[in-house]
């Protein structure tokens, strides 16, 4: 992509563009136009409209009221304790989930890459959590931990009466478990792709020089995988920040387990307060931008190396 970009810049300086180049450009734009227009219509337009709504007093329960209120909705959200609690919850779930996933994902990637046997089996099996509907996974874990229907409380060493969803941090534990189970495979597959790009000759050389497995991992695997790790972290972090389905099924935000997406949903759809809800939505959007910015600036993640699919 860089090479073609350079060529394009050179091409712009060369005065008359040949007819062939011009028709190629026209065809390129023509073929991309439908997809680009569709993507702009379904994202840029609604987010612009969300900004407009967030500056107004729009409450569908009281349609006669309304009008431009400036930044009042933002002030209301940012001065409410609920927003900050929910933001903290979301960041907590995001950080813990992604940290556990990175370690587990790396281990699974190593198994998929290095195991002497059963690699195909592992690759097939890890795709099941990846593909399963999040709501289904959330119900499965919810019923497993729910004292009335589950089996977890019947395990040895776990109190028979433990009410997992009755207390904040035990509820977080189950939410995080379900999220980690569902999304570690994606992390593992991205890391596996990074692993396969490492030249195996390096390991041979290190072995000859007397490096043990631990040293080989820290001195060769990790440094060479840094780009793949950062890209996987970026995608999973942004995805974890949007956490909604699992919390909705398990607690609906009870016991102070609400995430910012749940807050946005309850303002918009349950309370029909489009003004306040849109302010929450725009703030969530800004948080996502901020996270992406931090990754690109501080960690030097090259977006061109990333991919969607989390």
């Amino acid at each position, binding site marked *: 992509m860089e090479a073609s*970009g350079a060529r394009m810049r050179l091409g712009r300086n060369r005065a008359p563009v040949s007819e062939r180049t011009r028709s*190629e*450009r026209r*065809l390129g734009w023509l*073929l991309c136009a*439908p*997809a*680009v227009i*569709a*993507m702009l219509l*379904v*994202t840029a337009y*609604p987010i612009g*409209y*969300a900004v407009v709504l967030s500056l107004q007093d729009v409450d569908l329960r009281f349609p006669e009221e309304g009008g431009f209120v400036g930044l009042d909705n933002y002030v209301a959200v940012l001065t409410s304790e609920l927003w900050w609690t929910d933001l903290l919850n979301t960041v907590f779930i995001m950080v813990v989930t992604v940290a556990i996933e990175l370690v587990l994902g790396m281990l699974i990637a190593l*198994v998929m890459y290095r*195991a*002497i*046997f*059963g690699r195909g089996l*592992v690759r*097939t099996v890890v*795709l*099941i959590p990846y*593909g399963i*509907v*999040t709501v*289904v996974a959330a*119900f*499965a874990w919810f*019923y497993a931990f729910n004292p009335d*229907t589950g*089996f977890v409380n*019947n395990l040895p060493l776990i109190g*028979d*009466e433990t009410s997992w969803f009755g207390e904040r941090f035990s509820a977080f534990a189950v939410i995080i478990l379900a999220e980690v*189970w569902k999304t570690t*495979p994606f992390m593992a*597959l*991205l890391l596996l*792709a*990074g692993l396969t790009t490492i030249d195996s000759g390096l390991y041979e050389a290190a072995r000859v020089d007397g490096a043990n497995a631990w040293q080989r991992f820290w001195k060769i695997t990790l440094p060479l995988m840094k780009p*793949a790790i950062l*890209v996987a972290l970026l995608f999973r972090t*942004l995805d974890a920040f949007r956490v909604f*389905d699992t919390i*909705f099924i398990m607690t609906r935000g009870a016991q102070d387990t609400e995430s910012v997406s749940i807050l*946005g949903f309850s303002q*918009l*759809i349950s309370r029909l307060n489009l003004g306040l809800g*849109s302010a929450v*939505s*725009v703030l969530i*959007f800004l948080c*996502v931008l901020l996270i992406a910015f931090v990754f690109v600036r501080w960690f030097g993640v090259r*977006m*061109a190396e*990333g*991919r969607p*699919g989390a």
Partner: protein
Amino acid sequence: MERGTREYALWSIGIVLIVFVALLPVVWIVSLSLKEPSTITTGPGISVWDAFFPKEITFDNYKSLFEGGIDDSPFIKPLINSVLIALITTLISIVLASFAAYAIARLNFPGKSAILAGALAIAMFPPISTVGPLFDMWRTLGLYDTYPGLIIPYLTFSLPLAIYTLVAFFREIPWDLEQAAQVDGATPFQAFRKVIVPLAAPGVFTAAILVFIFCWNDFLFAISLTSSDASRTVPAALAFFTGESQFTQPVGSIAAAAVIVTIPIIVFVLIFQRRIVAGLTAGAVKG
């Protein structure tokens, strides 16, 4: 020799653990769906084994899902909605994305890296940010609780995913073969049909599977932009399942419905494992 055995044992433990943890919730939800409604309740004093597995296997939970036919069953209409909405979205996204991906992979024109970067940015977009405006617009436009009302927002994630996967695959295609075929006397259409289509088909198919899985999975748009079985998909319908009375939880029915929507995913995974892994990792790291 000793080191070999130890390594063998270590890998075995790792593999067994991964397989066990990955399958546990799936086996659990199947087991739950086969329990007699009266035996679903567990509690203290029961062994794990008895709490996990059904005492007697029954298919009543599945039967109850389909009782009453299409009009009264809480499940049939959402299942049809899920299948149709996911298929239509996949079809639209793959067609639009194929054009764009072909252009990006094969033609030279200014702005193509911007299009790819834009698609990537849109893929990371938080869906909750568009839910409010869409809810408002759809109610005015009459798209609330309709198929297009869900298909259009699904394009936010399906188009970037499809474009990215297809570009990665199309870059690998040896396009020169098309010209070679024409030199050998094939018409442009023959060259396209006999040479390019077979080379591109696996990538297109892989992208289609990934997009379908994503649409099948959506919950946020589905609960926000629908209000009835007219367009509600299964994940949203599950959240609104009710028991026979307000005091009974429809655990068995939810479990049975959950198993049914998981079957297509398991089938995809078992048949197309290699393709899905290739699709997910294609373009993830520059080789």
